[in-house]
């Protein structure tokens, strides 16, 4: 009996010592700034869970710098001013060393001034319209040249599309992306009248007229392709109408930039087989890291039907890059970490690596997927990793701009006049 007690005590003492080893010092706090309520909750809650999973996994590995990680979760409730308020709270009240958060461009623009004022560090995990490079933000999602332009190239090269319908929800990401695509297509010799642009409100549901307009584009005898930056729920009605109109992917292929595994789970995909999406990651990617990631996700959520998606991969890459940079810098202070993070290379989930570039974007492979009956994607094309370009080469004002933080200490550097236009970002 006494022996057993002794052993027990010894074991528990050992455990305590072990735990003490992993939790030496204060925990390192990181902020999670994703909406848990409101319209964006549908997309962002998943990312909050992803960060929590990554924190848990990292702590199981012994934390960072021998200190445990602690996630501070706040809810900006899909309310853009609230994003700024909560970011300030995270940085000044909770004293977090890095923030993982935001989804929409407007939420990022809302947070930017606060992050720059207080010299915080934000990891932004969603594909976006580019035209920005902040000292305090690492953009782990795709810039237009890592999603939109390769996707359009694919449609021209592989599908022979000659006439374009650019359909989008009316906000900044579709607007800017379509502007870039418009300039790009024209530079490729597509005529003005061969590009049809339409913007619809958020959550639009009456698609009959727009789908009819798209079908009517075929009257020129040119192959029509749709590039869709339609956001969120509105996609459901759009694809239903498309299916009802009998538009097959062979006649009019639809390439979506905002439709992933999550969005398709709200749909019966039987009639959508063959339509396309462009991302930097699909759940069907074949690699060991991906298998492990999906397993970890299913274990964490306790639900084997939960899908993974591109912003989750971007969150994971951002998290691992931050951990690597902190280990390299030996501190969690923002400036040394920012110095250390450029050039950091971490594995992505599609069998390659992602490098953090001087312009605070990443290298990412571009994947094109065709929708399958089960709501997953068949990867029909995968490129080598493409370096993200903060300032697009296809708009005249941006073509002359460059971002290079370690080299020039500037995110908006005019290469013609050789001067830094401004250090702070545009909001």
């Amino acid at each position: 009996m006494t022996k057993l007690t002794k052993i027990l005590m010894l074991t528990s003492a050992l455990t305590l010592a072990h735990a003490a080893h992993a939790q030496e010092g204060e925990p390192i706090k990181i902020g999670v700034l994703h909406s848990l309520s409101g319209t964006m909750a549908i997309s962002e809650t998943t990312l909050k869970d992803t960060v929590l999973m990554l924190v848990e996994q990292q702590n199981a590995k012994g934390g960072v710098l021998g200190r445990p990680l602690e996630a501070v979760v706040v809810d900006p409730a899909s309310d853009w001013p609230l994003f700024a308020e909560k970011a300030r709270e995270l940085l000044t009240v909770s004293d977090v060393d890095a923030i993982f958060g935001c989804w929409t461009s407007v939420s990022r623009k809302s947070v930017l001034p606060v992050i720059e004022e207080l010299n915080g560090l934000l990891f932004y995990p969603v594909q976006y319209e580019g035209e920005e490079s902040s000292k305090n933000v690492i953009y782990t999602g795709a810039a237009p040249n890592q999603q939109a332009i390769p996707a359009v190239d694919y449609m021209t090269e592989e599908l022979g599309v000659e006439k374009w319908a650019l359909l989008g929800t009316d906000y900044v990401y579709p607007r800017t992306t379509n502007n870039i695509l418009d300039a790009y297509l024209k530079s490729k010799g597509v005529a003005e009248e061969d590009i049809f642009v339409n913007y619809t409100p958020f959550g639009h549901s009456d698609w009959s007229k727009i789908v009819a307009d798209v079908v009517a584009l075929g009257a020129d005898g040119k192959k029509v392709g749709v590039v869709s930056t339609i956001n969120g729920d509105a996609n459901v009605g759009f694809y239903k109408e498309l299916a009802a109109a009998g538009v097959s992917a062979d006649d009019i292929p639809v390439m979506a930039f905002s439709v992933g595994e999550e969005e398709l789970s709200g749909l019966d995909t039987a009639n959508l087989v063959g339509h396309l999406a462009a991302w930097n990651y699909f759940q069907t990617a074949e690699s060991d890291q991906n298998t492990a990631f999906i397993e970890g996700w299913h274990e964490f959520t306790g639900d084997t039907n939960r899908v993974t998606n591109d912003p989750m991969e971007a969150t994971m890459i951002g998290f691992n890059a931050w951990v690597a940079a902190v280990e390299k810098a030996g501190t969690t202070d923002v400036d040394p970490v920012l110095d250390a993070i450029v050039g950091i290379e971490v594995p992505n989930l599609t069998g390659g690596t992602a490098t953090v570039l001087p312009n605070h974007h990443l290298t990412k492979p571009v994947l094109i997927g065709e929708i399958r009956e089960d709501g997953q994607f068949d990867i029909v094309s995968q490129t080598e990793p493409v370096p993200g370009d903060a300032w697009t080469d296809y708009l005249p004002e941006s073509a002359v701009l460059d971002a290079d933080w370690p080299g020039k200490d500037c995110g908006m550097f005019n290469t013609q006049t050789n001067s830094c236009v401004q250090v702070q970002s545009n909001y």
Partner: protein
Amino acid sequence: MTRFRLLAACVMALFLPMAALANPALDAVISDNLGQIEKPSRRSVQPLVEQIAATGPEGLALLRAWSDRRLGLTAEGRAVIVDGSSVLDAVTGQPVFGVEPRMLRPNSGVRGVIDSAMVAGALNDPDARRRSAALDALARGGTPEQLAALRAALDDPDPVLVARKARLERLLTIQLDKDTQARVAAIRDMAGDVSLDFRAALNPLLAMQRVVSAGQPQGNVARELEVGSDALPRDAALALLVDAGVLQPRLTSAEQRGALAANLRNGQVGGIPVEQLSDPAARDRAYDALEAAGAVPPAATEAEAEAALAAHRFFDLYAEPSPEVTDAARAAQIRAQLRLGAMTGIDLGLDALSLASIYFLAAIGLAVTFGVMRVINMAHGEFIMMGAYTGYTVQTLIADRTLSLVVALPLAFAVTFAAGVVLYRLVIRHLAHRPLETLLATFGVSIALQQLAKNIFGTQARPLTAPAWLEGSVTVNDVISISSIRVAIFVLALLFLGLFLFIMKRTRLGLEVRAVTQNPGMAASMGINPDRIAMMTFGLGSGIAGIAGVAIGLFAQVTSELGQGYIVQSFMTVVVGGVGNIWGTLAGATLIGGLSKVIESLNPGNTLAAQTFMILFIIIFIQFRPRGIIPQRGRAAEA
């Protein structure tokens, strides 16, 4: 077991040497082009496909499997055709066991190339489906050889396919035939047709290119353009001249600034102090000075532009060289124009009708409650949402979609009827004659219900799928078409109009409702219990909202915010139409549906603007008919 496996291995070993002999050409093509078979590209796959097709029936089988995504590659690099559970070697056609082939996924462009390569052979295939698929492939574009093959295969046992083949032959003749007369004849044959494929054949013939030329240009001239006309503004003409290299481009202000900066000497440019150069006029003077000194190249002047304009003519040229063909095509296009316009109008009308019927369904319940009780139920949108979620829940329980719909419609009615009655008993009854407070209280219910739905069903859109017989669309021709589900909603709206009229005009309940609406005091004096009537009407109105929810969920997304998207429109419908009258609601829905479609078609690039203008119109409309299109009469109207 082991013995059997051994035997199988022996058998295979026996077959293998023979297998390699079955189609050595195909085998060679495959092993030479493994890389391209694995990762084909539309641009470069054509020769390979032709090579494979030329190797004989095994090659064609391989192509077919490749196009259907049934082709796999084994670890040793052998191509196998997978068909369900059976795996056949593509070269030999023999079954293969114990391999895990990696399936190839050619993209749709590559599949198009493969299909097109097999068209000629497939036109006479015994399988009608395959012949039809070949025609599909041909309709996406053909070659002169395929046209010849099609002409040779015009006969078909299936009359539908005969017609399709004949039509396709005409279309391909227009596009591909060498003989101008044959093309003109084909165009004349089909003139007046408004279908998409004919227009798609016609329009490329009429494609134009704008050229600058000193004299009469070579080619098929469509028209000469006047500089300064609407078709060719002066700036566009100058741009054309610059593009043609005839005219030097005008100096842009950025270039001017760059040139000035390059010639900055001692704080002066061309004798003008640098501080003054924030004035454009000073910049021009400085530049002129530099030009005089020869420091910068002379800029283009207005006189040069005038001279170049005078010396050149501007033309639109057809890409198609033959004037006879373009003339015939132009004539055919003009003939089709009017019909096309009319049909686009009809299609727009159908869209408008569909939208109107949706608004009608959504608003009818609101109109009933508002008409009888003078209260606005802000939770009406949430009742619509409850109906849609009922439909979704039923569909998760009953797999058969037709049956689930049959169950869901009455169930949605029942659920929302009950919810309406509960809301009436608990809240609205206690707020009688305080309409503004009712409005706010029901708003409280609305936000609570919306959040409840989020908590129960999540924020994600839920699938509510129409049964197969409601998929697809009712198509008159390529212009006029409407999805079946919208037709069904239209029918449903008509049904409810009829049902509602029946209840109101032919039943005791309807009589009492009308009495209470017109004069509650008198009705009460006649022994009608206004409280009970109000409750029944409220339930009825809510129940219809539930059914509308199922209908809306079938063509749009089921989310907790579903009702929000319709509530304001429903209010508008009621207000515009006039209260307490079903015909008013109908008129309101028609007006709003029609109007929003018309505005949308006037401004096709921006759906948001259409909604804004629609609401503005309604605000102004109310000015002129404050009581709606069909105003209520009787004593209640003054209340």
